[in-house]
C-alpha cells in the first residue's frame, strides 16, 4: 500500500476513536459505555494495521492481534462485572456508582430513578435504554438478554 493512503485509514481510526470517546462520556448506561470503549479500541487497532501495511512489516499487525485478544478477554470480565453491578442496584445507570468520591462531597448528579429494593419475583436482566428515534412499535426497551 502506498504511503499516502495511510492517512485515510488513520482518519477512519481517529473518527472511530472520537465517536467511542464521545459516547463513553455522554452515555450513562454501563453497557453502552462499554461498547463505546470497544469502539475506541477498534479505532486504535485499525491505525495499527494501517501502519503495518505502510511500513511493510508485521509489528503493527502483531499489536492489533494482541489488542483483539485482550479485548476479547476484557469483554468477558467487563460484562460479568456489569452483570454483578446490575444485580446490586437493579439499574445500569453509572450514576449509582459514585462511592469513590472524597467523603462529604455531594453527588455530582443524582440519578433520576430510585433503584428497586425489593426482591424480584422472576429473574431480571439488564436492559438497554432506548436510543435514537423512537421505534414505531410500542416497546419501551430492547431486549438484549
Amino acid at each position: 500500500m502506498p504511503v499516502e493512503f495511510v492517512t485515510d485509514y488513520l482518519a477512519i481510526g481517529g473518527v472511530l476513536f472520537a465517536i467511542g470517546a464521545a459516547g463513553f462520556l455522554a452515555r450513562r448506561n454501563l453497557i453502552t459505555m462499554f461498547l463505546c470503549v470497544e469502539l475506541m479500541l477498534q479505532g486504535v487497532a485499525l491505525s495499527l494495521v494501517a501502519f503495518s501495511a505502510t511500513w511493510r512489516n508485521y509489528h503493527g499487525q502483531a499489536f492489533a492481534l494482541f489488542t483483539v485478544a485482550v479485548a476479547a478477554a476484557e469483554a468477558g470480565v467487563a460484562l460479568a462485572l456489569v452483570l454483578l453491578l446490575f444485580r446490586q442496584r437493579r439499574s445500569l445507570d453509572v450514576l449509582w456508582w459514585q462511592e469513590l468520591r472524597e467523603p462529604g462531597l455531594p453527588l455530582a448528579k443524582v440519578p433520576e430513578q430510585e433503584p428497586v429494593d425489593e426482591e424480584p419475583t422472576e429473574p431480571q436482566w439488564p436492559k438497554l435504554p432506548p436510543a435514537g428515534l423512537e421505534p414505531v412499535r410500542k416497546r419501551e426497551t430492547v431486549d438484549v438478554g
Partner: protein
Amino acid sequence: MLDSLVNLVWLVPLASFLAAALTWACGRWLGRMVWIPCLAASAFGALWSLLVLIRVASSAPAAVLVDVFSWLQVGELDVTVRLLVDPLSSLMLFMVTFVGSLIVLFSVWYMAEERGYARFFAEVALFLGAMSSLVLVANVLLLYVFWELVGLCSYLLIGFYFTRPSAAAAAKKAFVVNRVGDFGFAIGLLLLWTLTGTLHYDQLLGGDSPAINSLTPPWITLIGLLLFCGAVGKSAQFPLHVWLPDAMEGPTPVSALIHAATMVTAGVYMVARFFPLYQASALATGTVLAIGAFTAFLAAAIAVTQTDLKRILAYSTISQLAYMFMGLGTGQIVGAVAAIFHVFTHAFFKALLFLGSGSVMHATHGELNIWKMGGLRRFLPVTHWTFLCGALALAGIPLFSGFWSKDAILAAVWEAEHGGLLVRVALILGLVTAFLTAFYTARAYFLVFWGEPRDEEVAEQVRHYAEDGHPGEGQQHGPAEPLTMQVPLIALAAGAVLLGLILALGTGGLVPFLGHSFGYAEAGEHGHHPLLLVVLSSLLALAGFAAAYPMYATASELPARLAALFRPLYVASSQKFWIDEIWLYIAVRPMLAVAAACRVLDTLVVDGLVNLVASIPAVLARVFLRPMHSGALQFYAIGMLLGLAVIVILVVLRAS
C-alpha cells in the same frame, strides 16, 4: 607439637563462642541438659590454657605472637587478629577459664530451678569467649571490641531477671556508668593509634624501638590517664564504682564470674598490659596509685556497715581491685606482678565467697540480710567450711592466698622509694584497709554462720531446706549440698588456701615469671617482703578478724552501742557516703533536665516546623484537589482524555 599448642590457642575462645551459638540455637531442644556445651567449652578451655601456661612458663622466649587471620587492611590501617601469648595473658587466660568452668559447674545446680536456663548458659558462654579473647588479643582495636563485648554480657546477665524492675535498672546503670569510663578509654586508644600509626601490641610495646617511646611525655600521660578512665569504669573504682554493688541483682554465679573474678579485673589487666606506657609517666602512675588507695579505703569503709551479704562482697571486690591498682600505681615491675598475683588469688577466693553466698541464698530462699541469718554452719557444713577458707583468704590471714598477694602489693608500695607523701598516705590507707577488710569479712562470716538464728521465718526456711533440699517450684528436691556444688566450692577453697603458698614460695615467686611479660623491662631485684610490713599487716588482719568475734559471733550489744557512739560515721558508711546521691544530683538530674528541655524543643520547634511544612500540601489538596474527586466515572474519563489531548497537541507542535 608443643608449639601448635600455643599456635592453636584461639581454639579456647572459639570453643566458648561456638558453645554460645549452639546453646542459643538448640537451647529449647537440649532442655535441662543445656549446660553441656557451656561446661564442655569452659572445661576444654581450662585444660588447654593450663597446658599453654605450663608451656609458657617452661620456655624462652616467653612471648609468642599468633596471627590468626587478617581482618582488615585499608590503606595505613592494618587490623590483624593477632594473639599474644605471654606470661601475663596465659595466666589470665587460665584464671578465666578455670574459675569460669568451676562457676559453670556450680551454676548447673544453682540455676536449675530458674526459667531462662538456656539463656543463662548461652550468655555465660558468650562471656567466657569474649573474656578469653580480651586477654589474648594483641590488638588495640580488638581489645576495645572484646572490652565492650564483656560489658554487654555483664549487662545481659545483670538483667537476667529482667522482669524485676530493680534488676533492669541495675543493668542499665552498669551499662551507662561503664559508658562514661569507656568514653575516655576509646579516646585514649584512638590517640594511641593516631600518634603511633599502629594498633598492634608488638609494634606499640615490643621490639627494639617500641612505638610508645616515640611519644612525648605529655601525650603519654594523657593516653595513660584516658586508658585508666576505662579501667576505672570497668573495674569499678571511685568515682565510677557505683554500678558494681547494684550489679548484685544478677544471679549469684554471675556475680562470682563477671563481677568478682574476671570481667572487673579486665581494667587491671589492661593497665598491666600497657604497663611500659604507665611507667613512662609519673603522673599517670601517681593517679592510679591515688585512686587505688582511696577506693580501697572507701569501699572497705562502706562494706563495714552493709547488711546485704552480696553487697558486702561487692564492696569488698571494689576494695580488692583498688589494691591491685595500688600495686600497678607503684610504677614498678614488682608492683605490677603483685597486682596480677592478687588478681589471680582474688579470683579464687572471691568466686568462692560468692558461690558460698549463693548456697546461703538458696537456703534462706533469697534472703540476703545478714542480720536475719545466723547459725547456718549447722545446716550447710560444706558451704560453711569453704566460706571460711575464702573469708580467711580475703581477710589476709597469714598463709592463706590473699595474705601473700596483698602483702606483695603493700610491699611494693613500701618499696616505692621515691614516692614521697602520696606513697606514704597510700601505704597507711592500704594498712587501714587491711584491718577493715578482715573486720567486715569476719563480721559477715560470724553473722551468717555463727550464733543463733535471728529471724524465725528465715530459720524455718533454712531448717526446711536442710531437710528437704531445694524449696523451688520444681518437683525434684535434691539434697541441700549435692556434689555438683561441692566440687566447685572445694576446688576454689583449695585454691584460696594453697595458691598463695605455692606461687609465693613453691615456684620462687611470680616475679621471675610475670616479670618477663611482653614489653616489660627487666625487673631489678626481686621484691622481698620487708619483715616489719609483713608482721604489721598480719597483726592488722588478725586483729580485724578477732575484733569481729566478740561483736558478731555471739549475741552482743556492742555493735549497736558502737553504732550509736559513732553515729555520723555509721550513717555515712551505711549510706555509702551518699555517692549515689551525689551522682544523682551532679549528673543524673542535670542530664534528665537537659533531656526534658530537648524534648520540649523537639516537640515544639522541630516537630512544629515539620508539621507546618507537611500541612501545606494538605491544605492545598483540601482546597483544590478534593472537589475534583467526585467519584463520577465520566469526570475522570474527561480528565484522562483532556490530558491525552494536551500531550498529543504538544507532540504534534514539537514535531512540526
